[in-house]
């Protein structure tokens, strides 16, 4: 027995020593350690809709234009642009002297090739239809690209500023390069390594077109699924930035002298959608009753860690937001009266489908159920996984009630497009649908705002949703980190200005 014990001890020592050998010899520049909650599906921005992909490749790729800190779309790879009087011809003047990570010079041919790639059927981009407005492209010279649109389309600039309009080098597109795992762009960082489900390592692009940026030499995105490990990592200094922390962890982080917390309003639209084509939810009185029955601020505070109520289908911080929160205040008595009038009691079972991997929505769902039960409704919760949610609830409208948060969009058409003509809530309203289409074809904030105000009013009154609010997001940093930005509406990570004090 003693022999075995000795042997065991010996083995453990060997392992420790090998471990130390491995760990030694990697002393270099201090990287920024960033906690990422999941593995990006792919690093090809043209082939996915995954948020994690866009959050990750924001550092590798640039777009012609991009949203600045305040969400205003500003020049990036294009220095300026003009739109023709009929809004059909958009001419972009490209920045000179920009280089791809592989050394290629950036020209209009790369822009054309990138959009042709998104538009190609075999790429099967989830954003192909969105780009379909491009009728043709001209490259009069190396630094000019002209987009000819098939109709006036206000959201076009927002499309160009989104991650899925990333510019890839033509030479590699032509050779069928593996952009899934080896992205090559013009961005502030080059991909050094991607170990799936473990880490993404970026190193500085010394030739970046923004002078003096990025400030960091190296960024490591550590893929850590367990939030308590992230919290401990932040407190102990092994992690420098956590993009979003659970409200449960906030007290612990506040107690740590080395951690700074920053709370800001997200562009999320938190809702409880209702299937308006299914009785009894086709009766507007029932939907109104459900809206009266919900204490919106309470759910925001408890389930989502705080936020601001909205009252219609637009995020609170959006330039197109209009306040309708007074329309359906919390009033359970009124809810009961309306339900009585509509003749709906607890003999009707309403199924509330909750996406189980989103724990916050599940928590919120339980609160919705409780509040609806109080006014005499019979709500049954069913947990489903995300794939089922997309296919059954979102695409096939097989649900009564569900809970979800819609991400903010750079252009209001991204948020509202398609409503009034069904969508998953099966809500039909010709006035709203007509206005949404008209607003998309109108250029100019003032003109569009008038139309969207009317759309938001119709949606606020007809309540195909319970509009809960936009939640707060708490980002946590080591106190010596400054300049980490989250791109407004796109929620991507921007490390260009990030540095250690």
């Amino acid at each position, binding site marked *: 027995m003693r022999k075995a014990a000795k*042997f065991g001890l010996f083995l453990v020592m060997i392992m420790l020593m090998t471990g130390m050998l491995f*760990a030694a010899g990697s002393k270099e520049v201090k990287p920024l350690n960033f906690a990422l909650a999941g593995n990006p599906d792919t690093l090809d921005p043209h082939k996915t809709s995954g948020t994690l992909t866009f959050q990750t490749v924001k550092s590798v790729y640039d777009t012609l234009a991009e949203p600045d800190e305040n969400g205003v779309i500003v020049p990036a790879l294009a220095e300026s642009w003009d739109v023709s009087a009929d809004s059909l011809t958009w001419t972009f003047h490209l920045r000179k002297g920009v280089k791809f990570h592989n050394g290629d010079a950036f020209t209009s041919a790369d822009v054309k090739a990138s959009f042709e790639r998104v538009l190609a059927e075999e790429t099967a981009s989830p954003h192909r239809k969105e780009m379909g407005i491009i009728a043709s492209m001209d490259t009069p010279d190396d630094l000019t690209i002209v987009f000819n649109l098939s109709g006036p389309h206000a959201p076009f600039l927002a499309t160009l500023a989104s991650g899925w309009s990333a510019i890839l080098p033509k030479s590699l597109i032509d050779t069928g390069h593996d952009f899934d795992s080896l992205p090559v762009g013009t961005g502030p960082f080059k991909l050094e390594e991607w170990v799936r489900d*473990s880490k993404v390592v970026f190193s500085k692009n010394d030739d970046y077109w923004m002078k003096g940026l990025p400030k960091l030499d190296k960024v490591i995105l550590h893929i850590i699924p367990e939030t308590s490990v992230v919290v*401990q990592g932040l407190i102990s200094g092994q992690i420098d930035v956590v993009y979003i922390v659970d409200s449960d962890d906030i007290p612990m982080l506040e107690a740590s002298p080395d951690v700074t917390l920053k709370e800001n309003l997200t562009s999320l639209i938190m809702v409880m959608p209702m299937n308006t084509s299914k009785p009894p939810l086709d009766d507007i009185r029932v939907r109104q009753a459900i809206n009266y029955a919900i204490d919106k601020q309470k759910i925001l505070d408890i389930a989502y860690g705080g936020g601001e109520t909205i009252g219609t289908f637009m995020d609170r911080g959006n330039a197109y937001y209009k306040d309708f929160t007074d329309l359906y205040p919390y009033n359970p008595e009124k809810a009961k009266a309306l339900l009585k009038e509509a003749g709906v009691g607890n003999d009707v079972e309403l199924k509330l489908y909750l996406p189980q991997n989103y724990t916050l929505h599940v928590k919120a769902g339980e609160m919705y159920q409780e509040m609806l039960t109080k006014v005499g409704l019979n709500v049954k919760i069913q947990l489903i996984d995300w794939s089922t949610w997309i296919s059954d609830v979102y695409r096939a409208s097989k649900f009564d009630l569900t809970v979800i948060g819609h991400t903010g969009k750079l252009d209001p058409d991204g948020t509202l497009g398609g409503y009034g003509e069904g969508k998953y809530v099966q809500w039909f309203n010709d006035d709203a649908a007509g206005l949404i289409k008209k607003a998309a074809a109108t250029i100019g904030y003032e003109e569009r705002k008038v139309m969207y105000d009317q759309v938001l009013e119709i949606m606020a009154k007809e309540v195909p949703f319970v509009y809960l609010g936009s939640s707060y997001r708490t980002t946590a940093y080591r106190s010596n980190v400054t300049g980490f930005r989250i791109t407004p509406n796109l929620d991507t990570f921007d490390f260009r200005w990030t540095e250690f004090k």
Partner: protein
Amino acid sequence: MELLLFIVRRFLRLVLTILIISTIIFFVIRVIPGDPALVVAGIDASDDDIQAIRVRLGTDVPVGVQYVRWLSDIVRFDFGESMISGASVNKLILERFPLTLTLAVLGIMLGIIVAIPLGVLSAVHRWSFWDYFGMVYSQMGMAIPSFWLGLILLLVFAVKIPLFPLFGSDSLKHLILPAIALGFARAAVILRLTRAAMVEELSREYIITARAKGLTDRMIRYKHALRNAMIAVVTITGIQFGYMLGGAIIVEQVFSLPGLGRLFLYAIYQRDFPLIQGGVVFIAIVFSLVNFAVDILYSVLNPKIRIS
């Protein structure tokens, strides 16, 4: 010759098993709700975009056609490409396997080092301190969830006393705590079994014969009884090892390790059909190989057991 025949038969059985399992899986994942094209498309894509994605993924054709395509690919050991990431399934699995293998070997080694000596001691000296200790340990080992143990280990040995890293997977050092978290519960099972098998062997008639023959207690216990008891122990250890090679999902989540478990778990979440199928076939092969090794070990332990 006999061995060769055995291997051939085993191999044929493996092929048949894989065929049956993969066929079941192939259809089951297509019957349950969820569509990989919708996972790729997200919620903003149009119906046309989704159809184009289905064409790219090859899910636009009838299931029967997909099945025939898949079968003709796997006979060439080509599991296709992940529908979600576009990477080759072979590559994804083989990339993860070394880590999972190392973790499983470490875990099972820790399990054996703790469990077998303790199990034998418990059986030989029944109702002694070691026996009680072993009982308490095995109760705890089976009752403590591995994610909890993992978190506690991290809190103590990576945060309070920072001997080990909190996350990452670059070196063997990253695998020590996960191996302990994994081995702890396995050890409990192996310990129980070792004790029970040993107690049973020690009460057999041949032990009395051996004793009458004048053999020392030492000889009887460790040469005769232990050897026979090992047959059951090897079986259970083999099965446990097989499970670990399939991926220890919970431990991988807690320790942020890029192992097979997480690969397959997300493949299921995202309805990544080729990756799920490849994973199932891979695990089936691993299980068969482990079982095969166990069978060989039987005949080493007891030459009377002929492989047949």
